[in-house]
């Protein structure tokens, strides 16, 4: 993907295994969100292909990508401000459920899963940023996606909330949803990821299980740093 002469994503190629959690990390400006935009259809890539569930979805408009089952959240949250929290989630639920009654059930379910029941009748625009992030997740979840693409949903969460969010992602995975997760909060991502892809300056510099990634010299130099890498290595649950 090129913007004028700026190469935002160059020759990035990786697979996301069905039913896995794939982490996408890298320093600011590495091209993570651009990559998301290319996959979800917000941008039309200047070269390369996006394959999903057996179809070539390169350059499809976002709504078609979503209908096929690949749904994303936005890093800069986009709540439907003048609608209630519940109605926001309901819009997501209508993707798979055509009639109101079953859509209400699905919306109710993902609202509860994301612990938003207390805010159901509030206008989405009046939520705090943390709750808006959760709303993004609840809304995407309500579409019953095959692939859920999360763009920094855990940013700014406190310790306890982080634990909750990690449990939630694991539960979503257990329900058979594939996850592609952009995240800066390594302590949260590394323990749950099956695989991590690292971008830097628009190119892929590493790909592998978390244990390998935290030990990779290149990733330490580009992003993690010595001190932080040591801390991550101490985490026991990293997959190898």
């Amino acid at each position: 993907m090129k913007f004028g002469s700026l190469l935002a994503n160059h020759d990035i190629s990786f697979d996301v295994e069905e039913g896995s959690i794939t982490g996408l990390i890298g320093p600011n400006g590495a091209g993570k969100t651009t990559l998301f935009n290319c996959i979800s259809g917000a941008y039309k890539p200047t070269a390369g292909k996006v394959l999903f569930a057996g179809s070539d979805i390169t350059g499809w408009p976002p709504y078609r990508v979503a209908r096929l089952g690949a749904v994303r959240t936005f890093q800069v949250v986009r709540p439907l401000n003048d609608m209630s929290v519940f109605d926001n989630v309901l819009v997501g639920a209508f993707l798979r459920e055509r009639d109101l009654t079953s859509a209400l059930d699905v919306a109710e379910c993902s609202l509860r899963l994301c612990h938003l029941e207390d805010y159901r009748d509030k206008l989405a625009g009046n939520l705090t940023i943390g709750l808006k992030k959760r709303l993004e997740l609840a809304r995407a979840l309500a579409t019953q996606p095959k692939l859920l693409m999360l763009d920094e949903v855990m940013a700014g969460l406190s310790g306890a909330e982080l634990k909750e969010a990690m449990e939630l992602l694991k539960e979503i995975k257990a329900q058979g949803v594939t996850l592609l997760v952009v995240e800066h909060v390594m302590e949260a991502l590394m323990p749950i990821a099956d695989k991590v892809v690292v971008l830097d300056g628009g190119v892929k510099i590493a790909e592998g299980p978390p244990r390998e990634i935290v030990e990779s010299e290149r990733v330490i130099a580009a992003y993690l740093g010595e001190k932080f890498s040591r801390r991550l290595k101490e985490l026991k649950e990293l997959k190898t």
Partner: protein
Amino acid sequence: MRHRQSGFGLGCTIFGILAILPLIPGPLQGPFAKHVLVMVLLFASMSQAWNLLGGYCGQVSFGHSVFFGIGAYGAGMAVVKYGLTPWPGALLGAIIASIVSLVISYPCFRLKGHYFAIATFAIVEIFNRLFMVWYWVGGALGLDYPIIEEGWRNFMWYETKTPYYYGAFALFVLVFSTARWIERHRIGYYMRAVRDGQEAAESLGVNSPQVKLTAMAISAFLAALCGAFFVQYNLRVDPPMVMSLDMSMRFVLITILGGLGTLWGPLLGAAVLIPLQEYTRAIWGGLGGGVDLIIFGLLIIVIVIRQPRGLMGFVSWVVGHRARARGRG
């Protein structure tokens, strides 16, 4: 589901009250009062038709007088040129208005925000001029109704306004029921989603061009039906009567006054503006032609500053206030 059904009883109550209104003896019995009631119901319906696109879907159109006019000419042509009843003309006019709206808005919806509104301004002018010089539809002279048998078949009455009231009431029930159905249906949620954030909506699988076109077609269809009623009520039509920016503005302003994107906003807006318009006109005659608009302009300024959600905003504030007070007591 509890909050899904709320408002249903209110709707039935409002319909019920409006249904018996002409039977209540008292000041509402005079022909002028009845005329005002007919106009309130008509303009409430028109504004609701506009509200479907402008309020729920967020696409502000100043072109709705065109669809209104096409509906009026549909019924007018059927009666004046072809000697038929107005019914097939009204239906055909509504269908043509829908098609025209789609042809117009397909390119215009590529324009975002204000640019869409500006484009619709131009369309009113184009259609006004076109109908002015179009000999087949009567040109600048318009269409004058012949004197034919009165009754529901021809939808015209000379001596009484009561049937017109019930005609307007039927139109009102049709338009408001449609709006209420859409509001609780998938398409209604999608329309609001497109209004509040097109990108977010599309990320959830909403085909926003299609949603906007659907809203436009329904809105134009209903506006055209209102136009057909209007011509039957006035028994004549010419281009400035129906296809004018002035008429377009009424669709917009009544809805903004009442409350954009709310079910009962258009009725509230019309119930305030129309009596104001008709009574100032009756009192000051030709001299007072602009007085209603001056007052109306002031009202709009107050509303926009104090309560952007319109009169419905005030109503829900008062209701909420009382509910809170009851909760405490």
